[in-house]
C-alpha cells in the first residue's frame, strides 16, 4: 500500500481531520490490508475485532508505518488495545491517543475541546506548522464544503431510480476519506452537475431499495452483492459513509475547538455512544425519507457495541413492518458466498 508523505493516519470518524489539515498534514483514513489478518494473530487473541486485526497486520507489514504518524481514539475496547499494541510493536513516528468522550453533553464537549487543543499543539510540534485558529477555520470551511456536497448527493439519492449507484457513491466517499482524491470538492461538483443534467429517467422497473447500516466498511463488496441481486442502496449509515459526511462544523463559531467538539460528538452517533433507541429513530427517519423497502444491518464480528444493539433494531423494524436482515461480516468479506445467498434471499423477499 502506498502512503502519501506528510500524512497522518486515523482509524475512526471521531478524529477531526480539520486539525490534521490545519497542521499542514494530509489526513488519511487507514484501511486494513485486503488479504489476511494472519500476521496479527500472533499478537491478538482470536475473538478480536477483524478490523483491528487487519489494521495491525497492515502496520506490522510496514503499511501505515510509512505514515508520519497515526492517531487513535477511545472508539472501543478493541481500538484501545490496538493503540497499546501499536506503540509496542510497530515503529511509528507519532502515535497519539485522542480522548473522545462517549457522552455528548456540555461536560463532554468541554473536555473534548481541551483534548482537541492538546492534539493540535502536539501535531503542530510534529509537523512544524503551528495550528492557528485562522488555519483551522479554513480547514473547517474546506471540509464543510466537501461534506455539504456529499449531503447534496445524499438528498438526490432519495429519488427513484437512483441518480448514482449506491456502490459508486460509497466508493467515492472512500476515495475522499483515504486522501487518494486530489480534489474532492471538484470531483463531487462534477458528479452533482452530471446528476443535475441527467434527463429525467424513463420509467424503469422500480428496484427494491435497501438501507445498509453497520460499523466500518472499507470495501464495496456488500454493495456489489446487493446491486447484483437486483436491488439498490440509496443510503448507507456507516462510519465510512454518512456518519462521516452528515456532519458539518459551525465555521462561524467564536470557539472553533468547541464547534469541532460539538459537531464530532453530535449526531449521527454510532453504537459506541448512541443508545439502540436513538439509532433506531435515526434509521427509521431514513427509511421514510428514502422510501426504503428493507434494512440490511451488518456488524463486524466481535463488535460488542453493535452486536448488543442488533436485537433491539431487528425487533423494532420487524414490529414496524420494515423487512430487516442482520449479517455479521469479517471486514474482509471473505465469506461472500454465504453472504450472497442470504442477501439474495432477502431481496427476493422484498420483490414479492
Amino acid at each position, binding site marked *: 500500500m502506498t502512503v502519501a508523505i506528510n500524512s497522518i493516519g486515523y482509524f475512526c470518524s471521531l478524529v477531526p481531520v480539520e486539525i490534521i489539515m490545519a497542521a499542514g498534514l494530509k489526513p488519511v483514513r487507514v484501511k486494513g490490508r485486503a488479504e489476511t489478518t494472519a500476521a496479527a494473530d500472533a499478537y491478538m487473541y482470536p475473538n478480536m475485532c477483524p478490523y483491528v486485526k487487519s489494521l495491525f497486520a497492515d502496520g506490522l507489514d510496514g503499511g501505515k508505518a510509512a505514515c508520519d504518524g497515526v492517531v487513535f481514539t*477511545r472508539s472501543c475496547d478493541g481500538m484501545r488495545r490496538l493503540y497499546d499494541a501499536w506503540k509496542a510493536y510497530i515503529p511509528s513516528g507519532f502515535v497519539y491517543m485522542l480522548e473522545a468522550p462517549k457522552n455528548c453533553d456540555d461536560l463532554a464537549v468541554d*473536555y473534548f475541546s481541551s483534548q482537541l487543543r492538546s492534539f493540535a499543539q502536539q501535531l503542530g510540534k510534529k509537523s512544524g506548522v503551528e495550528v492557528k485558529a485562522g488555519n483551522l477555520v479554513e480547514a473547517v470551511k474546506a471540509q464543510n464544503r466537501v461534506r455539504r456536497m456529499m449531503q447534496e448527493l445524499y438528498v438526490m439519492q432519495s429519488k427513484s431510480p437512483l441518480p448514482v449507484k449506491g456502490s459508486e457513491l460509497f466508493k467515492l466517499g472512500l476515495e475522499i476519506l483515504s486522501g487518494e482524491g486530489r480534489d474532492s470538492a471538484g470531483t463531487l461538483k462534477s458528479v452533482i452537475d452530471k446528476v443535475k443534467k441527467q434527463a429525467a429517467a424513463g420509467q424503469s422497473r422500480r428496484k427494491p431499495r435497501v438501507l445498509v447500516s453497520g460499523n466500518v466498511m472499507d470495501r464495496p463488496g456488500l454493495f456489489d452483492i446487493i446491486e447484483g441481486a437486483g436491488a439498490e442502496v440509496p443510503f448507507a449509515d456507516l462510519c465510512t459513509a454518512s456518519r462521516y459526511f452528515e456532519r458539518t462544523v459551525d465555521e462561524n463559531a467564536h470557539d472553533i475547538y468547541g464547534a469541532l467538539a460539538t459537531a464530532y460528538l453530535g449526531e449521527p452517533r454510532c453504537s459506541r455512544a448512541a443508545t439502540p433507541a436513538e439509532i433506531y429513530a435515526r434509521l427509521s427517519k431514513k427509511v421514510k425519507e428514502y422510501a426504503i423497502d428493507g434494512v440490511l444491518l451488518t456488524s463486524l464480528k466481535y463488535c460488542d457495541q453493535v452486536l448488543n444493539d442488533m436485537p433491539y433494531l431487528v425487533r423494532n423494524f420487524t414490529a414496524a413492518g420494515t423487512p430487516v436482515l442482520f449479517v455479521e461480516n469479517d471486514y474482509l468479506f471473505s465469506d461472500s458466498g454465504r453472504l450472497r445467498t442470504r442477501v439474495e434471499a432477502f431481496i427476493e423477499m422484498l420483490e414479492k
Partner: protein
Amino acid sequence: MLKKYYEEMKSGLEAAYQQKPRAWTMMNIQLASTFIEAFHEDAKVVWTSFYSFPMELLAAFDVVPFDFEIFTNLLPMFDADKAVEIMNVAEEAGYSTDICSFHRLAVGCSMLGYTPKADLMLTSSYYCDGKSKANQSLAEHYGKESIMLDVPNEISKDSVDYVAGQLRRIAGKLTEVTGRAFDLDRLRECIRISNRARRAYGQLAGLQKVTPYPYIGVPVVNMSIFANMLAGKEIQEQIYLDMVKESKEKIMKGKLVPEKYRVAWLAWFPPQPTNITQIFRENGVTIVMGELARNYWGELDEDLPFESLALWSLKNPYVGPIEQRLKGINEIVDEYKLDGVVHFSTDACRHSCAAQKLIGDALKERDVPYLVLDGDMSDKRKYSPDRTQLLLENFIGVMAGRKS
C-alpha cells in the same frame, strides 16, 4: 427464581456464620442481603457496576446498589445448566453468542423477569463496551434512562474535572430518585469510612505477602470484584479487620495451607463450577493476589469528594493505556514472591484478553512463567475441564522445573 437462590444462600451462610464466624462468610451474607433487599417494594434500587463505579456516592444516598452482572452470574455456581437455558433465551432474541456470557445471562434473566426493578441505571464506560451496551439494552427493557459515567483513558486535571462533573450530575439524579437532598457532609463521612476500610485492606494485602499465604486464594480475586459494593459503609472496614485478625491468627498458629507455588491471577475468576481450584489444591498452588486486589488507589480526599472519586475511577488498572495495568502487575510480581502468573481469558473479554501478548512479553522480560488460560466465565458450553487440566498441569510443570 434468582431471589430464591439468594434467600437460600443467605440463610445457609447465616447458619454457617453462627457456627463459625468468618469474615469471608460475612462478605457473602452482605452480597446476598443486598440482592434480596433490591426486591423490596420500598427500596430505591440503583443498577450500577460494583467494581467500576465509586460506590461511596451511592452510600451517601442510602440506596440499594444492584449489579446485574454479579447478581445473574452467580447463578452458574448454583445451577450451570439453568444458566445455559437462560442464555439461550437471550440468544434466541438475537444476542450473539460472541457477546460475553455475563451479559447474555443478564439479558436473559431480565427478559424472564428474574431481576428487580430499577429506579436508576448507572454504568461506567470502562469494564467494558459490552457492559455499558448491555446496560442500555436493559434500560430499554425497563423503560429507564441509561446513564454512563464516562471515564477517559488519561489522567489530567481536565479528565478529573470531567469525571467529577459527571458525578455531581449523578448526585443530582440520585436526589431526584430518592427525594433526598444531596448532603455533602454525608458524602464526606462515607469517604472517611471508605478510607478507613482502605487502610484495613492495606493491612490485609500486606499479610498476604507472608509465605505460606495466610488466606484462601480465590476470595482475594472475587472480593476485588464485589467488595467495593460496600464502599462507604462501616461493614466493609469491619470485614477487612476481621480478615486481618483471621490471617494473623493463622500465621501465629501456623495453620496455613500447603503451598508449593504462588501465583497471581489476572482478570476474573469464573463463577461457574470448574476444576481449577481442585487442580490448584492437588498441586499446592495458591492464588496470592489478583490485579484488582491491590490497593492501587490513593487515600480519598474528603475536602474534594467528587474529584477524589473521579481519580479513583481514573486510576483503575483497566482504564488508561496498558502501562497502567502493567505497572500494577509488575508491583505484584515484586511484592508477592510469585512463581507464576495466570491470565484467565474469558471468551468475549476483549478489553482484557487483547492485552495478553503485551502482558506476556512484560513478564517474559522478568522471567516469570505466564499462562493464558482460556475458558468462559459463565457458559459451560465454552469451558473445557480437560483443556483446563492440560494447560494448568503443563504450567505447574514449568513452575516445578524453575523451582528445581
